[in-house]
């Protein structure tokens, strides 16, 4: 394709395969080697670039996704021969050791300070938690970002690099490579149906944070790709009477930035806050998360307790399915050939219901869940449980609902005794598997135990609360 985009402030037209990874385009074809590749799977953040000013992982983006975009790499951050204030601050604070993570850190921090001036230390840590550093222990990086924020723009200039940045972009020797897979980005639904008809075996994607990992690992090898991200009607969030309709291409970050979601669907917002990393939340979409249908998919348990359904559409018409009918097993959905997930329909939950989501991962960010629990509880006037919905993730082939447990809890008091009483039955009912992340026994026991957090969270606050270990502990550590 002829790719037209702006790279570091210069309008470019580049002859490149739409299927080429952005990181390869930048590094190998254009010689912009300041962008690093540490893993190729979105797990380290070294390849972070800015696309239209927002941080993105260039290892999980195809060149075709850059059409019309404004790209900034580390080489283009400083607008003069002086370092950018953030770069100077990294130098001044000893925030750089081996330097391999540094370009990604600096660009992610640029995005943060642009979006959210004066973050506190815990907010900085959360915002950069998708970028891994193995040398510094992170504290000096937080120092550097905090200082740059408080002293921006006039930072005492660090020494100018010996050579001009422009001069140092050396002549690239692009590698000829096999890139025989066409990639399409339809801009209208009609165009989409025509493409699907012409390429019936094409793989559809929306976000690509899983698909690009699978393509790299050769888990899938489709003859063509169709990206849904340019279909405007897949990007809307709207309240329609008694439900909220969320376009499938809405990113997790867009959902978190929307008050309709955070105020009306706190259980979903809590799950989204713990999904992947800040980068993954910006790139991944709710539709993608559902269609991937991973047993560990973070949006599935909250959408289950919210009684969400999905709106599927094809050239022949549309249909609505409940989430349970839509996802039947790991990676298995009811999508028919030629059909796409258009939107997720979430009925408005009862007012004043208690929302809670907890995810057990093996670390505090960028973690795949080993067990999770979403809960939606309606209380009666006397404080007893009127209605309760519970959904577990990662302990079965798909979301686990236990109607008999929900029934047993109805009418009971909201205290530890109530939940402790049902633990043996929950334990019996869950059937997790063992994998590299955790054994079945641990998953079963901890998944059941998560119920014991409910009375604690309820007593702490009648308002929806966040998981203490993720927010309170983080701010305490970094205060």
């Amino acid at each position, binding site marked *: 394709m002829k790719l037209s985009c702006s790279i570091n402030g210069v309008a470019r037209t580049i002859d490149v395969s739409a299927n080429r990874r952005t990181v390869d385009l930048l590094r190998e074809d254009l010689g912009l080697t300041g962008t690093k590749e540490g893993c*190729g799977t979105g797990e380290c953040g070294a390849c972070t670039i800015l696309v239209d000013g927002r941080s993105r992982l260039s290892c999980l983006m195809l060149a075709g996704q850059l059409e019309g975009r404004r790209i900034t790499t580390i080489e283009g951050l400083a607008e003069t021969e002086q370092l950018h204030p953030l770069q100077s601050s990294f130098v001044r604070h*000893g925030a*750089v050791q081996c330097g391999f993570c540094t370009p990604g850190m*600096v660009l992610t921090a640029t995005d943060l300070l642009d979006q959210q001036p004066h973050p506190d230390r815990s907010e900085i840590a959360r915002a950069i938690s998708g970028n891994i550093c193995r040398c510094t222990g992170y*504290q000096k990086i937080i120092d550097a970002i905090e200082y740059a924020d408080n002293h921006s723009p006039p930072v005492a200039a660090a020494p*100018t*690099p010996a050579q001009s940045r422009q001069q140092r972009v050396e002549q690239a020797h692009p590698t000829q490579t096999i890139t025989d897979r066409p990639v399409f980005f339809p801009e209208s639904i009609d165009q989409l149906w025509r493409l699907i008809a012409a390429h019936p075996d094409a793989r559809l994607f929306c976000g690509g944070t899983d698909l690009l990992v699978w393509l790299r690992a050769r888990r899938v090898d489709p003859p063509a790709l169709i990206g849904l991200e340019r279909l405007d009607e897949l990007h809307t969030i709207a309240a329609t009477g008694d439900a909220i309709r969320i376009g499938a291409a809405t990113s997790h970050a867009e959902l978190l930035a929307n008050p309709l979601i955070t105020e009306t669907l706190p259980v979903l917002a809590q799950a989204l806050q713990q999904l992947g990393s800040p980068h993954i939340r910006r790139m991944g979409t709710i539709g993608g998360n559902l269609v991937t249908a991973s047993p560990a998919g973070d949006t599935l348990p909250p959408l289950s307790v919210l009684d969400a359904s999905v709106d599927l559409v094809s050239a022949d018409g549309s249909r609505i399915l409940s989430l349970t009918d839509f996802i039947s097993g790991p990676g298995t959905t009811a999508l028919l050939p030629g059909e796409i997930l258009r939107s997720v329909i979430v009925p408005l939950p009862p007012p004043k219901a208690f929302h809670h989501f907890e995810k057990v991962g093996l670390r505090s960010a960028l973690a795949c869940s080993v067990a999770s629990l979403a809960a939606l509880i309606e209380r009666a006037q006397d404080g007893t449980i009127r209605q309760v919905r519970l959904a577990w993730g990662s302990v079965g082939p798909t979301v686990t609902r236990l109607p008999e447990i929900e029934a047993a809890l109805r009418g009971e008091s909201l205290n530890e005794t109530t939940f402790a009483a049902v633990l043996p039955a929950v334990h019996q009912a869950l059937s997790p598997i063992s994998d590299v*992340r955790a054994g079945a026994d641990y998953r079963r026991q901890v998944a059941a135990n998560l119920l014991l*957090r409910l009375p604690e969270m309820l007593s702490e606050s009648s308002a929806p609360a966040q998981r203490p270990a993720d927010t309170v502990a983080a701010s305490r550590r970094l205060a």
Partner: protein
Amino acid sequence: MNSVFTANLDRADTPDKCDGGARYVHDLQVAGMLHAVTVRSSVRRGTITSITVPELPAGYVQVSAADVPGVNQISYFKDPCPFFAPGSVQYRGEAVLLLVGGDPAKLHRLARQTIIEYDEIPAIHTMEEALAGDKPPIFGSDNIYIEERFGHGDVDGAIARAAEVFTTTTETGYQDHLYLEPQGVLACPEVDRMTIYVSSQGPHAARKVVAAALGWDEASVRVIQTTVGGGFGGKIEPPMFLAAQSAVAAHHCGKPVRLIYTREEDLLCTTKRHPSRITVTSALAADGSILAVDIDSLFQGGGYSQSCAMVLDTGTKKASGVYHFPAIRVRGRGLASNNPMPGAFRGFGAPQNYFALETHLNALARKLGREPLEMKRALFIKQGDATITGGRYHFATGLDETISAATEAAGYYRRRKALPAGPSTRRGLGQALVKFGAPNSVDSKISLDSRSIGLRKHSDGRIEILSELVEMGQGLHTAFRKLVARHLDLPVKRVSHAPGDTDAVPFLSITGASMSVVLFGATLLEAADKLKARLDEPGEVTILQPARQPDHVFWDATALRGEPFHSYAWGTFIAEVEVDMITYQVQVVDLWVALDVGSVIDRRLVQGQIEGGAVQGLGFSLLECMPRDGFSCSLTDYLIPTFLDAPQVHGLIVETPYPPGPYGAKCVGEPPLVGVGPAIADAVANACGVEIYQLPITPEYLLQRMTKR
């Protein structure tokens, strides 16, 4: 604070690292460059019966053991260590051949189509199997790469007459270095010469290996060090393999060949920390005092010994910790297996042994109801005491000062018994004490004259440091510039480093084992002394100063007697943890690391080493694990700490000058990692009331411990 260095210096390498200008090996492209992809063993152990490579397009070649013009051996090692599988394989992921050509995607496709068939040999999966002897041995007749014993006094007698014998066994698993920059090499053939660009911890060592692989003299090989994206010991051994393989390929093709690992390859086949199982037995008198300690330390090596002997050796020499026991016996054995290949890693055998000993003593204190620091204090090494190898602790120890600094900062004595518990959380404080010997003594009969470091005064007055020691992020070059500037009384900006190029700097050493500043920094100052007298001479002046061990060091490597190390850093680690009793997750809230590093050359660099080393140690203690008998080949499965997992690390610096070191400096590279594990384990034990005998302390392990009670 007695250091002469008061101000921190901004590093010279960071502006380039901040704006994308720094060139790492995978950033290098040259015209006509070919790419190489490695075809690896898919089995743990076997004889190769056939290799079927698909028909290769024009310009594509395969390169394997048969194409090696010199020796198919990493000549850095004495024990067998081929860089292409020599007709048989010893571990999954071992390199069998390279495919070389212009298109990496095409090469990967060809590699997937290449079929290697094996006659499999029963693989040795565990240390028990290595010792049992019922499978064909991998090494010698007994699978033991190295066995060493140190100690003094009558341990058996003490155990026989003890009122009580207390035994603990601890285990630790694999840890990957997880430097952010995967391994890579670019080999460029020239007329009668080969130039290697490599991310390594020792350009001259790589040169020696490449020369032997090509069958050339060393002068015909030039190694240029590129910016290193993290090392931690992991850029010592693996780059030698890549350098030898790509040099053979480049020689074979007559074209530059670039070999860059994916993260998956890097996790699969590069070195890791040795898994360990260590049993500590103490003989107790009726009053609970320790009469003798017996330590049996097993390290699980891989299918080739690589650095196993060196790691086992230094780890075993450190195994007695900060204590002078009335009697002690330490036995260390490094065993062969067909599991993933371990090698050098920050701490070099110390993290495993300190976890074993400190955990033993902390568990003993809990059992006896004693305050652990007071119980340990009775046994502390004092200046003048004997080492377990018959040498002496010649210099003042800063251990007590580190204990004071850490306990005061943490409020340890005040808060230890009175930490708040939440409705579903418990808190605990834990501690561990360490010493870190560095560098390793070399046999006193061996002259170090062939190793040197130097200085060059240019005619314009600039001073260049001629050193092959590698800046891999730790700040070594900044420390050296400060030392030289101070010694010559010149502004530091006049002092720079010559490029890490074997044509430009002399052979000295691998950069590792925390020895660069304490040993070679002193040699550098001797060079500066000589240059000082000649600073006013016109023109260029070059001084090359041979390395030597300090006068107090005598080591007999045959008898294993004398000073095992030149100098010792001392440290106290205190961890505060919060354990979630619903999920059994451990969160380290604060970590106090008080280290006696000798005189400080740059406080910010020292803090950087402490903070980074402590968080790497936290990963080893809580998160990082690979199945001991299996593989984790992606960053989805192999988890290291993120911003949100890192605790507040309080680095507390104690300066007890080491007279032979440069301005009294000792070392700081490895010590911040080695005491984190036992301190966290002690804190978890105090919070939960169960002893912790395994690293990492996974939630699953903690659940098992707590439900077994």
